[in-house]
Each structure stands twice: as C-alpha cells, then as structure tokens.
C-alpha cells in the first residue's frame, strides 16, 4: 500500500468516465493503481475492486482470463463484505457470469447461476437485486425453450408476483410472462393478461409499445375471439402509437369488428396534423 495520492478523486472520476464510454480497457489500470493505494476493506478499496471487476466483466474482446478475474473479484466482495451496499450486486454478477457464454468456448454453469440467484433473493430480501435475481432465475429456465424448464420459469414468476404484487420489477416480469405464454407455450389467454398487466405497469419496451399492442389485439381477435380486448388495443395503436405503421390496418380491423374507428393520429405530435377518416372498405389508394 502506497501513500494515497492527492489527486485520487480526479483519477477516480477519470476511471468512471472511461467506464461510461465503454472504454473498460482504459479504466482498468486506473482502478487497479488506485486500489493498491488503499487498505483492503476500506470504502475506497471496495469501490476500486468493484469497478475493476465491472471492467474485466465487460472488456472486449472478452477472454477467459479477464472474465475469471472479474468473477474472482465480485466473489471476493460478496463473500468478505456481505453487508456492503455492493455485495448483492456483486453476487448477482457472479451468477450472471456463470449463466452466460462470455467468451469463445466458455462453459455455461446454469446450476451454479441458479443457486446464486436464489442466494441473492434469500440473503437480500426487499432489495432491487432480490427482484432482479428472481427475474434472472426465471429467465435461466424460460430461455431454454424446453417445455418443462419453461414451465418451471413461469411458475417462479407467477409465484413471486402472487406474493409480491407490488414488486418494482412486476411489470418486466409480466412482460416476460407474456412473451413466454405466447411462445413456446401458446397459452394465449394468459399471454394477453400478462401483457396487459405489463402495459398497466408501463413496462412495455419504450418506443416499441405498438408491437405488443398489435400482438395483443391480433391474439385477442384471432385466438381468443375477445372483441373487447381487440378493440381496446387496435384503438390504442391508432391513438397512442401514431408512428407505428399499423394504424391503418387497425382501422380496418376495428371496422371489421363493428367498433368505432378513430382517425389516424399521424403527425398529431408533429406538424402537418393529418387526420384520415375511417376507410370505407377501399384498401388501396
């Protein structure tokens, strides 16, 4: 351990700036140098260690050495300083490294990842990390697209949402449920309910809400024969997502369903407000 440099805050700032610009390889030497200047376990040392681990985790191109070093550092923080604010995130990151294929020929260790996700949820209840760990645990099953596993993932999410309806990530979990019920499970009633819940919680993909609205409306019309939901979402496409190019087709669908047909809103958030009356059945122009 050397003397703490006077300008360490400047260097630290520089290091984090590199991180924000995805320049992980340039941040690593700064954090590593600073880490050596502080006693192990100090707040600064923990910060530098965490930062170094983040950089190694995301450095490109990834290599076995950098990813393993990242895992080692995150693990060290989670094990030695479990009460620190970064411990839950460090543990979650270890799980993530185990779950993902980080570099060529990386071995995925789903069992380890799942155990660690469960550990995060159990050890840090009520935290954002605990919620995220539930989401990741479920994803580790649903992303296999193997039916029994997918059902396990769905059960994890459904159980969690039943017990924690106000979870901060409830909307995202519902969105995932909607996707999984659509494919591969093809349980359309549950799919639409989950998407509608995600919509209520404003958790649809920002700027791409129209795609989910279209899916809800189409599934409701074609698979569920649920006119009310179909009408609601075709109308939302026209009114709420004017730049999603399905407005006209939504008008046609509403007409087919015998529902009121709103005017296209394209340009209503912009100039040249263009309103188009409901199509009179002529689909070409």
């Amino acid at each position, binding site marked *: 351990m050397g003397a703490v440099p006077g300008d360490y805050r400047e260097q630290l700032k520089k290091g984090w700036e590199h991180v924000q610009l995805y320049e992980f390889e340039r941040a690593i030497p700064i954090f590593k140098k600073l880490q050596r200047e502080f006693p192990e376990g100090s707040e600064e040392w923990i910060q530098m260690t965490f930062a170094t681990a983040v950089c190694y985790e995301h450095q490109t191109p990834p290599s076995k050495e950098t990813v393993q070093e990242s895992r080692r550092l995150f693990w060290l923080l989670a094990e030695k300083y479990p009460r620190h604010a970064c411990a839950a995130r460090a543990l979650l990151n270890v799980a993530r490294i185990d779950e993902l294929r980080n570099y060529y020929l990386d071995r995925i260790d789903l069992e380890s990842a799942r155990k660690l996700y469960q550990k995060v949820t159990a050890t840090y209840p009520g935290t954002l990390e605990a919620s995220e760990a539930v989401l990741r645990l479920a994803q580790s099953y649903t992303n296999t697209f193997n039916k029994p596993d997918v059902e396990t993932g769905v059960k994890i999410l459904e159980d969690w949402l039943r017990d924690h309806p106000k979870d901060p990530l409830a909307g995202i979990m519902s969105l995932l449920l909607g996707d999984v019920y659509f494919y591969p499970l093809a349980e359309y009633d549950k799919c639409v309910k989950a998407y509608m819940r995600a919509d209520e919680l404003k958790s649809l993909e920002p700027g791409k809400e129209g795609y989910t609205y279209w899916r809800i409306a189409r599934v409701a019309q074609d698979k569920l024969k649920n006119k009310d939901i179909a009408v609601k979402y075709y109308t939302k496409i026209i009114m709420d997502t004017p730049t999603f190019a399905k407005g*006209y*087709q939504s008008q046609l669908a509403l007409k087919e369903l015998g529902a009121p047909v709103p005017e296209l809103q394209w340009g209503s958030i912009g100039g040249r407000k263009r309103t188009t009356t409901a199509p009179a059945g002529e689909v*070409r*122009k």
Partner: protein
Amino acid sequence: MSWKKINKEALGNGIAGCLLVVAFFGSLTQIRRTAQEVFDPTKKTISIAHWQLELGYRDALDKVCREYEKLHPDVKIRQVAVSEKFYGQVVNTHLVSGTAPDLIEMGFSTMVQMDQYLARYFEPMSGHIQYPNPYNNGTELEGVRWQDTFIDGMQSWYREALQEYYGIPSSAFTVRVFYNKDMFQKIVGHDRPPKTFGEFMNICEKIETSAKQEKTTLVPIAGSLYNSRIFFERYLNAFGSRYEPALDFGYDGGITGYRMYLGLRQGKLKWDDPTNKAAFELLHELSQHFQPGFMAVGREQAAFLFVQEQAAMITSGSWDAESLFRQARFKVGIFDFPMPAKDEKYGQYVRGRQSEAGTGTGGGFGLYRLSKQKEVALDFLKFFSSKRINQQFNQDITWIPVVVGTQPKENLKVFAPDPVGYASSFTWVWGSHSDEVYMGGLTQYLQNEISFDQFGKTILDALNDKTYGWYKAATLDYESMRNTVTMQEQLLGIVLSDHLFPKAIGNFDQKYREVLIRQTKMAQAQEEYRDRLQKGLSTTLEVK
C-alpha cells in the same frame, strides 16, 4: 543565342515568377483570412460538417448560421461541406485525431454506424432532450420537451444497444414520382397525374407512341439502378403484404428474412404463387418503359435524362425535389405511386399501398463529445431545430420539416408522409448472398435475359445453399442479436455500477428499468429465434 530568344525566355520566366508571387500572396491572404475566421479569439467558433451538396442546401444552412450569429454576436459558425464520397473518411480521421467538427451530420462514417465508436465520440442526448427548447418560446411548443417537438419523438435517433439518443434531426424524406407537366399536356392531352397503375401504363404507352411518331429518343420513365429500386420496393410491398397473415407467425406485424424462408419451407409461400407472379410481372411491365440498359445507369444520369426532357417521369425522394425544380425548364408535377385498381390487371393480387406512418426523421447532426464549444454547439442545435427555423430551413431547400406544427413548401405537400396503407412485406432475400443473387437475377429478368421461372430457381437455389444461404444468414442474425444483448449487458453494468458509486448518470430508476426491459426482450427474442429455427428448419445454430 539571340537577344530575341533571351528576351522571350526572360519574359516567360518573369510572368511565371509574377504569377507565383501573386499566388503565394493570394494563398497567404486566404490562409490568414481563414485563420482569423477560425481562430478569432474574440469569437466562439463552431464548425458544422455535412455532405449535402444538393442545390440550395448550403445557402439555406448559411442563412440559419448568420441568423444565429446575429442573435449571438460572439459566435461564428463555419460550414464544412464534404462530398459524400469522402465524408466518411474525413469524419473518421478527424474524430480519431481529436479535431472533429463540433456538429457532424450523422452518416457514411463507421464511427457513426458502430455503437462502440458512437458512444466514444458523440454526446448522448438524453440528458438534453428532456428539457424544453427555449427557441420555441412564444409558440405552441413552449415548455414542451425538446424530444417531443419532433414528429417521431426522435425514435429514429435512438440506438437500441446503447439505449441512448445521438443526433438531432432536421428533415424527413419520402419518395414519389416526378413528372413533366408540360410534356403530359402535349402528349397525353392533360397534365393530371395517373390515379391507377392502368392509367399510368396508358400514359407510358402514349409517350412511347409519340416518341416513335416524332422519331425522338424520349422514354416514359428515366430509370437507373438507384431510381428503379424505389419503384420496385413500393410495388413489391403492395403485393407482398398479402402474405402477412400467413407469414407473420410472431403476430408483431413483420415478415423478416427468416419468416419468409420458414414460410417457403413450410409451403406457405411459393415462387409461382399467383400473387408473387403478378408482382414480378408488374415490375417487368413497368421496366419496359424505362430506357434500355437502365440497370447499368447511375442516379445522376437518370436525373439528367429527366431534366433534359428525354424522359417524362422519374422517381426519387423529396431530397431531390429542389435540384429537379431548379434544373427543369418545365413545370414539374409529383404524384404518389399509383396502385392497380381492383378491376385492372394485377388488381386482385394487390393489398394496398405502403404505409408511411413509420417514416422517420433524418438529416440529423451529432454533437462531438470532445467539442471545445459544446455548449454553443448544443445551443445552435436547439436554434436549428426550433419550429420557425426548421420550417424556414426546409422550405428554403424544399425538404420536409420535422418539428411539430411546421409546414413544407406548398409544392412539396404531396411528399408529406401518408399513414394510410400496409406496413408489412417481404423480399426474397435473407442475407448478403441471396441479396446479390436476387439483384443479379432481377436485372436479367427485367431485361428479358431469363424467364420468371429461371429467376425463381436462381433465388431459391441461393436461399437453399446451406453454406452461403439460409444457414449463414441465420447465424449472422443470431450473432447480431447476441451482440446487442452483450452491449445491453454492458450498459446494465455501467448503469448499476454508477448507481452504486459515482452516481454521475442520474435518473437511475428510469434508465435501469428501460435497459432491463430491452435486455429481457432481446434475450428472449434471441433464444426464441434459435428455437424456432431449430424446430422449423431442423437445425442447430453453431454458437461461438
């Protein structure tokens, strides 16, 4: 050696020397003037780089710059106009060397196209666009978030992998058909545009008949590889969207390359389907009205044919309007692509025109992250994209403005994006190999070198080629999704570590939620893609 010869030589050398001295001092003066302009210590100088060499653009931009300078006498704005041929190289070089212009039109450069460089060299705009643009004060946009003052809410400027906005738009673009009204009047007997495809073809035939009678080289439509693709895309979409119910098994409104191919393998789509056949027959009929050999002709040559009255029509985008208006010595009309009427040939196979609701915004400028005059450059961007200036600028260059409440020039209103129509279609292309084969085959088919069936065989063989066709396309698609997920994972790492320690980014809750939503969606889509391919094509993608 005679005196005469010596005098002649001395005179020549003297003139050359004088010219050299004049040139030297001329250059020196020019350098000094430029240096004064660029390095004037009393002024904050910013530079704005673009590749728009179309007629009128530089003048219109210059007018905006001078107006801004009047408001801010301590600021000097300099345009750097570079040909699009070299624009990418110039921008890349200056970005790397740290001498880039303060504002850079976003395009042509790998530094703009690739996320990792974009993040490194350009200012993320999220933090700026959530506040009102003060130059909109006194209009209905006063107090409206800058982002919401654009017709598309700046969605076109969002980089998904980086979850950030880069660049501020200036214009929007659509495509239409330009025509010579005087020529229509003379040959067709009126100057109204055709309303249906049948009328369109009749007009073309009348023009050809007239050309034969008059023994001129006049053709109905000026074609080129560039221009004809616009026609082809529009008409193929009109037919292709009929396949949406069968091929959009994801129920999200789109037919991607792999959905097209799965449909093909599952028999939901066939090359000789009447709809597909009708679509290509229409293209074939249409292209008989272009000049011979049009696929080997460049964009400029086609425009030349039109303005020289060697062709009665040409298709292009609103970006060419001003150039065509200025160069043509006749009245220029514009019309939308006429669709076949129900009772006309092809009519029963057409679904309808293509919707333009998704027309994004373009002509955007990014802010160089290391600009020494970042605040000034940002303020100029606000001025440039204010309601009044955006309208003025676009009217001056005859482009479509993009700010709420603005109006294009009267003669450009026909270019205003029309949301009526269908959004989904497909092409017989999945991956670069099939793209090349398709374009080659299409050229041969349209030039009567191969039959429709031979064209089909060529493209199906290319798609079915396991080495270069579908499998390669699928692998590249999957890799691309995986790269996006990886970048989102990186971003999540950045946002979360920032929240734990330096807390420099701000607005953590929203940012974290957005990243997580997109990452969850993309990871799901990526694995769904792999699973559907595995089940639909009985294949396993090799993942590195």
